[in-house]
């Protein structure tokens, strides 16, 4: 009997290979050989969003979307990193930040992140609990809340990150209609076209997970991104070899990666 569950050996092998690649780049980064990561224009746009809000004297609307107990969790955690970044910048620049947790389960974490960011920047008095607004756990009740908030308060910028679905386009179009700058991010493939085409700037797919490392600039975090690139090359090699062998009628290699 195998130690590893049946049908999961290939997944474990790939996970170990990717983790080894990441560990190797982390080790190199710690030795001083930091991998270069390309500029994430969305982070610059987030800075512009905050600056615009300060100049216009209007709020920034930030929302994290996704559960913490499902497959969405990585996207939610990634959005928290950006929230901390935005909150600290907002505290520094005296911007009016309004935060909307998509689900009730996010309220404690998001409240704590914003509060701590204000304290870290030396402006605890700027934190107001009423700026953490919860609308509903229900998809379109939340969308209605976001659309209403955008229409009433005319925020200068709207930033929404996480595992978004149909509500993303409602919020995005409201932002466009009311002239707000928008940065949206998701790894949900069904929403990628709307996010990429409609938002001022976007964090799509892997960018959402890389943004935390990009912002922190810590060698270990940046190393995980460089390791991801090696993992990508492994994937390309596997796909290339698999396609060639399958074209030649050899199926066993492709079958190795069946789930």
């Amino acid at each position, binding site marked *: 009997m195998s130690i*590893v569950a049946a049908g*999961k050996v290939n997944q*474990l092998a790939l*996970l170990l290979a*990717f*983790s080894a690649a*990441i560990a190797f780049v*982390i080790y190199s980064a710690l030795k001083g050989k930091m991998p270069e990561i390309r500029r994430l224009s969305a982070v610059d746009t987030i800075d512009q969003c905050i600056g615009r809000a300060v100049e216009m004297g209007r709020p920034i609307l930030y929302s994290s979307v996704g*559960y913490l*107990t499902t497959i969405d969790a*990585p996207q939610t*955690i*990634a959005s*928290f*990193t950006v929230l*901390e*970044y935005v909150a600290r910048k907002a505290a520094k620049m005296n911007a009016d930040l309004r935060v909307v947790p998509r*689900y*009730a*389960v996010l*309220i404690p*974490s998001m409240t*704590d992140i914003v*509060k*701590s960011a204000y*304290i870290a*920047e030396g402006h605890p008095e700027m934190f107001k609990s009423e700026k953490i*607004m*919860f609308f509903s*756990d229900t*998809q*379109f009740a939340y*969308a*209605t809340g976001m659309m209403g908030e955008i229409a*009433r308060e005319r925020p200068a910028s709207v930033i929404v990150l996480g595992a978004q679905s149909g509500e993303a*386009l*409602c919020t*995005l*179009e409201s932002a*466009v209609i009311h002239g707000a700058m928008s940065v949206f991010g998701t790894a949900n493939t069904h929403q*990628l076209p*709307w996010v990429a085409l*409609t938002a001022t700037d976007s964090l799509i*797919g*892997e960018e959402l*997970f*890389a943004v*935390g*490392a990009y*912002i*922190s600039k*810590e060698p*270990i*975090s940046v190393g*995980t*991104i460089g*390791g*991801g690139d090696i*993992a*990508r090359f492994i994937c390309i090699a596997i796909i290339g070899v698999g396609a060639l062998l399958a074209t030649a009628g050899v199926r066993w290699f492709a079958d190795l990666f069946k789930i």
Partner: protein
Amino acid sequence: MSSFVRTQVPLFVGAALTFYMLVEFFIPVPILTQGGVEIRTWGVIIAAFTMGLGVTTLVDNNLRIIRRRGRNWPYYLYSLILMCVMIVTGLMPPMTKHFVFLWLYNNAFSRLAQAMYSILAFFITTATFRAFRATTFASACVLVAGIFVILTLAPIGAAISPVIPVIGTWVQNVPNLAGMRAIVIGVGIGIVALGVRTILGYERGHLAGGTGGGAT
């Protein structure tokens, strides 16, 4: 609260649980599986408790606006009254089956949710209209591919030319699918990288002030 309790303990718990769940996924030992089930149940229970927090936040914010007679305050009052009605009727026996609750749910809530959902059709149209302006080479490609896909899905496409559905189907099945799969692979690798950072304790955005001065 000390920094140790605030950041180090959650980091350790998060890293340990991430590692445990990973081992539990790959190694089918009954005791590990049982532990994994317990952890998932804890997550569901904690998530359920936070619904109370959501209600508290909602009531607190609405009451604040009502008290100071803020803009549109009657709507906030109306919202609170409706929330109370739904909670009370929902808790009346038989729980969530009381006829008033069901009537409100089916005839008000569901209809309003459907109405909001239907708005998406108009938003898709306006978003597509903007996306289809061929201002750059990339947007021109989107426009051309979009036209073929739309005509493929609409009956008129095949009537104009039998070649149109062939091209539209090819666009959907080859470049579109390849692009989507590339993004899915990228997302998977990104999640592995995030998982490694979490296990090593370097993903700290969720720990309130933990990224070590991300903002500059």
